[in-house]
């Protein structure tokens, strides 16, 4: 079940017209934390509403399908949303558009997978893009994120910045990252980027000058050959810029992860790609080999892209071997254990963001479910023919077959 992160308020009152959007933090009614102007008490029942008013909350967010009647007892800011957003909890941060009532969840405190979408613009056009690019002026998003940062719990372990291409407005992004450094010094920050901007020394130097204690650029590389990568990302010259970007980042001591999304164009050559990375870029901090999320453009290009993971398992295992022999940290994301060769299991991580993570019925009797990545719930999920619960009985059968 995919968590709804977007919506439209059933009603809202008390918002001024001097700005178009507000960033809101949710608080439980009993919260004793210092109250910020952006804080809204969460109410789910009429009782809650009464208590909130009584404890002098100036702003209230109601999560309920029932109509609300305040009878003029409350003159502060009010938003009402449907009960399907009942995951809202203390510490969560929401972006709210005054005129339309549209809102989106920017941050959930009890999630391990918080990511900020920075823009929908991108200078690549990947065949499998899960967030198809749009040429819109959405620079307001970075401002909104900047406004959110002081509201985020400083104990947050990690944040991801994603897009589109996160470095589309690189100066603004770097500004936001500096805010992260200052406001959230203990939070590890990962920025997903195609890395092409880093072929420009000026941009790498500015990135380095952030001086962030735990910053990682996560950059996709799809092949060891220029036109193959360029074709996957649909941009001529992308491979050259991306590799140059990686080199420049590492030259300045910045942390880099390389990602490879596995599908019919990248998985048959994954052993070559893995060996090439092991030989040429062994100094990267991490390599993530990732199962495909069948959403966005991946659906449109399904015929070209779909490949059953059991058909590329051997190549994947060899790629992992090459990388490990070169001392590279390698993980496999988004692929359930049952479709992976056993040698790869130690590298297979639970990696799918909680809000789009699910399992199928077969998984109920699986011994490895607790340590498995499961499946994407987004888009049109396609399932491998290899999905099978792993039980000790299955292991014994496999041993017989071997």
């Amino acid at each position, binding site marked *: 079940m995919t968590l709804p992160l977007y919506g439209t308020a059933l009603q809202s009152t008390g918002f001024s017209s001097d700005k178009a959007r507000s960033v809101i933090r949710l608080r439980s009614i009993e919260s004793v934390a210092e109250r910020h102007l952006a804080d809204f008490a969460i109410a789910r029942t009429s009782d809650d509403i009464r208590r909130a008013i009584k404890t002098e909350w100036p702003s209230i967010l109601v999560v309920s399908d029932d109509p609300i009647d305040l009878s003029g007892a409350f003159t502060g800011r009010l938003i009402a949303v449907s009960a399907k957003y009942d995951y809202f909890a203390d510490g969560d941060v929401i972006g709210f558009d005054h005129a339309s009532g549209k809102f989106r969840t920017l941050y959930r405190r009890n999630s391990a997978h918080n990511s900020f979408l920075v823009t929908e613009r991108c200078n690549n*056009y990947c*065949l499998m893009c899960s967030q*198809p690019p749009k040429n819109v002026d959405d620079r307001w998003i970075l401002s909104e994120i900047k406004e959110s940062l002081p509201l985020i719990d400083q104990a947050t372990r990690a944040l991801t910045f994603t897009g589109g291409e996160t470095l589309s407005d690189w100066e603004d992004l770097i500004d936001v990252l500096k805010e992260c450094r200052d406001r959230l010094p203990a939070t590890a920050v990962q920025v997903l980027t195609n890395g092409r901007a880093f*072929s420009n020394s000026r941009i790498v130097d500015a990135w380095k000058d952030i001086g962030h204690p735990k910053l990682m650029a996560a950059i996709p590389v799809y092949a*060891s*050959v*220029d*036109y*193959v990568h*360029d*074709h996957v990302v*649909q941009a*001529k010259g992308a*491979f*050259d*810029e*991306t*590799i*140059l970007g990686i*080199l420049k980042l590492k*030259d300045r001591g910045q942390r880099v992860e390389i990602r490879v999304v596995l599908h019919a164009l990248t998985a048959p050559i994954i052993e*070559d790609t893995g060996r*090439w990375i092991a*030989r*040429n870029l*062994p100094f990267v901090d991490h390599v993530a080999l990732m199962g495909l999320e069948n959403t966005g*453009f991946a659906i*449109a*290009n399904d015929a070209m892209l779909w490949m059953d993971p059991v058909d590329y398992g051997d190549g994947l295992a060899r790629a992992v*071997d090459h990388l*490990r*022999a*070169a*001392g590279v940290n390698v993980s496999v994301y988004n692929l359930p254990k049952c479709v992976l060769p056993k040698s790869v299991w130690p590298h297979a991580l639970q990696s799918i963001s909680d809000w789009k993570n699910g399992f199928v019925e077969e998984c109920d009797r699986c011994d490895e479910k607790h340590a498995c990545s499961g499946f994407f719930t987004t888009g049109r999920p396609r399932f491998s023919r290899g999905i099978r619960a792993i039980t000790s009985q299955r292991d014994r059968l496999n041993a017989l077959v071997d």
Partner: protein
Amino acid sequence: MARFSPPEAFSAATRDLSLLPFNFERTGTGQYLVANMVGDFIRLTEDELRRLVDLQARPGDGLYEKAYAAHLVTGTNQKAQRQLLAARLRSRMSFLQQTTPLHIFVVTLRCEHSCPYCQVSRQSTDRSRFDMSEQTAMRALDIAFASPSARIKIEFQGGEPLLNFPLIRTIVAAAKARSGKMLDFIIASNLALLDDAVLDFCKANDVQLSTSLDGPADLHNKNRPRPGANSHELAVAGIQRAREVLGHDKVGALMTTTEASLDRVDEIIEEYLRLDLDGVFLRPLSPFGFAIKTKQFAKYDAEKWLAFYERGLRRVLEINRQGTPFREFYAALLLTRMLSDRPIGYVDLRSPAGAGLGALVYNYDGSVFASDEGRMLAETGDDAFRLGHVEHDSYNSLILSDKLIGAISSSLTQCAPECSTCVYESHCGADPVYHHATQGDALGIKPLSAFCSRQKGIMSLLLDILESSPEDAAILRRWAAT
């Protein structure tokens, strides 16, 4: 409506392709081995090679993909591959930043063995004028500490260094009293004179031991005659005793190859296994000192030795396949060069040569040599690699001496005929002392060099195994892994 372009839309036109530097070697009819600027290997047919040179490779033809990934071809206006090759080249040459990490102290020339191949003069035990003096030792230490390397290894050799054990004590204490460098110590000894005092000292000061083990008893004793004819027995006892006190991995063994060894590699390996050593270093016989006089060197040539080596390596691989981890150390060194860009600490296979820049040898009489072989050469009257003396030379004057600079610069494989275009050059090294000893000049004529044939033979063998046997290839790759 999203529109996507096919792969052809992303190919460069032929006129926009450029060749990158590479070397090659014909390996058979219509077959070539090709290596790029940092030594990545790829096999091409003659037709593929010609198409490559004519830039007739196109995306989708298989050759383009192979050649691009191997950095043989690039887009004329692209930048990443050039930067990548530069960065990798820098890594491969970064051993130059650790100048002179190894310092060998020949604390005495005295020895009670009389090995036929030994380069060291055979002086009997009671002639103490062949011992290094404390004054010489301290001057040598001054020089060692003047080397820029942050970490140095001090190796004690001889003769039999334990015959001058008191000086070893003095040197270790004096070195530790000086600050500024991390230190490793090792004594290369036949272990015949190992006693509790020596072992306690080694344990207390973290000194490692290295001994000679040429194979089973009869082979070892034949190579190493000693009054009592018990060299092997003493070495084995010494290894086991030293392990008990110092720990298993503080005691190593090296073999020396003689004519007698060449037909017995299986037994030699068996002996190493029997003693639970974690590997063997199959070395060639070095052509120095007594070896030349006693015609040891003339007795076998590169081909015979290569047959010995191949048999030994395959036996080692078989042992691994049967479940026992066991290495051939020279292969492990070469594989690290061939499969990664990590610089290795082995001073005997590098260009610029490791003479002087990699190691300095302080002889018992205060003379300083560019390598152990350079010292052995001097024992036969040839001073070509004597750089100076501890009394009047400093680290700088030794390293910057005309002799050393001349030997190193004239032997550079990057510039030498045949070497500079050799497909194996990225993984090979210069050996000015060997070539001087065997041919009379530091560069040598490589077609006549047994060093060269051995190197080519070993690398060709390793490549063959990596390509033809997945199980053996996995074993070899493990030896080169970090």
